[in-house]
């Protein structure tokens, strides 16, 4: 059985939201959590260090073809797209999509292709519509579509764009998203 996987996208206001989510999760994360956060092409390790402080689970920057492990958080490196390749990660330097590299849509579409109904897509705070198309594909392929409650988001544009584009399964506050993700059963290892 293919383990569940979670993909998460955010931009403006998303770093703080992700940090709060990781804090709420504590050690309760059982699935791999793969994150595309809009960031400057030349951004450094500061973001990674910041997120590590909030997380009880390991947070790393993705390496190409790295195997996905349950309970680990993988961050898209600056100036690369990050994609899901079955049970591994893959990178690309394809052109930016809507000025974004990493693009949330690229990550989410690859998660839908790879994981189908095992995929969970989460959209947090952000200042544009990236992620809406990807979340729609996750939903179309039978996965679970989750959006942060816009009234809670520092920037509601991204969650609202996803809500307009997709019949989402759940609109939740960060605390509730943490509960949902902790409740995902540990993947059955082969």
């Amino acid at each position: 059985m293919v383990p569940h996987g979670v993909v998460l996208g955010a931009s403006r206001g998303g770093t703080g939201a992700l940090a709060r989510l990781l804090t709420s999760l504590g050690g309760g994360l059982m699935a791999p959590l793969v994150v595309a956060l809009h960031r400057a092409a030349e951004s450094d390790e500061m973001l990674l260090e910041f997120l590590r402080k909030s997380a009880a689970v390991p947070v790393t920057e993705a390496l190409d073809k790295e195997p996905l492990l349950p309970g680990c958080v993988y961050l898209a490196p600056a100036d690369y797209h990050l994609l899901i390749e079955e049970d591994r990660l893959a990178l690309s330097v394809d052109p930016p999509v809507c000025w974004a590299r990493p693009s949330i849509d690229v990550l989410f579409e690859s998660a839908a292709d790879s994981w189908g109904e095992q995929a969970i897509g989460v959209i947090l705070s952000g200042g544009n519509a990236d992620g809406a198309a990807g979340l729609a594909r996750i939903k179309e392929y039978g996965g679970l579509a989750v959006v942060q409650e816009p009234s809670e988001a520092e920037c509601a544009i991204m969650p609202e764009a996803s809500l307009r584009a997709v019949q989402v399964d759940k609109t939740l506050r960060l605390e509730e998203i943490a509960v949902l993700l902790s409740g995902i059963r540990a993947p059955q290892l082969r």
Partner: protein
Amino acid sequence: MHERQIAEIEREALLTAVFRRYGFDFREYARGSISRRIRLSMQQENVATISALQEKLLRDSACMNRFLLSLSISVTSMFRDPELYVSFRTCVVPQLRDLPFVRVWHAGCSTGQEAYSMAILLQEEGLYPRCRIYATDMNEEVLDRAKTGIFPLDAARAYSANYQKAGGKTFLADFYTARYENAILHASLRDNIVFAQHNLVTDGSFNEFDLIFCRNVLIYFNRTLQDRVCQLFHDSLSPSGVLGLGKKETLDYFPRRNDYQEVDRIEKLYRRFR
């Protein structure tokens, strides 16, 4: 059957068809990227299904050229990852000074930005007259662009900051002439670069090299193909040659990993030692 699985069957059929019709083999490319390219190509060609795209690709070679171009364009810059060049100057250049002649292979050079960056560095280090850079790509159209040595002027200005961080000794503008909206690299930089078509998937080793750079190309391949291409590099590398990969790539999964030592762990520079 679910749409997702049908699309997967169609993708496999399309890649097989393209290989048999044109000889370009994308069957062992990483699924995520190739799926996305196929999807974009469907929009561009205005077809509704992968099967319809396959039909068009088989019969319309202009459509195939557009598809091939979309698979060959990666967006990079001169002196991408400037720290790599700093490290290269410190850790690799001294070793090159002992060599009578230096052969460099830039595999998958696309539009040539990184090959020219290396030419500039080698010129600054006084090594360029005895260097030859072989810059290869599977696509002749991007090679033609690379050969011109012409970049948009605003891009060249953006590269300047990278050049400085890369330990550049003067100004990037000293290496090109601005004309209208373009930056034209000096002809002396092009003198020792040979641009040639080479397909990493289907072609073999063609020389022995002291340096091989293949940055952000292996990311497009699946694990099986990555190993095969790394073996091709191994067979093409001199006994103490240096292999440079992209910053987020790793040699760690390669079965012959133990034949290499890390020159720079962060910048992914490896030296073969057996």
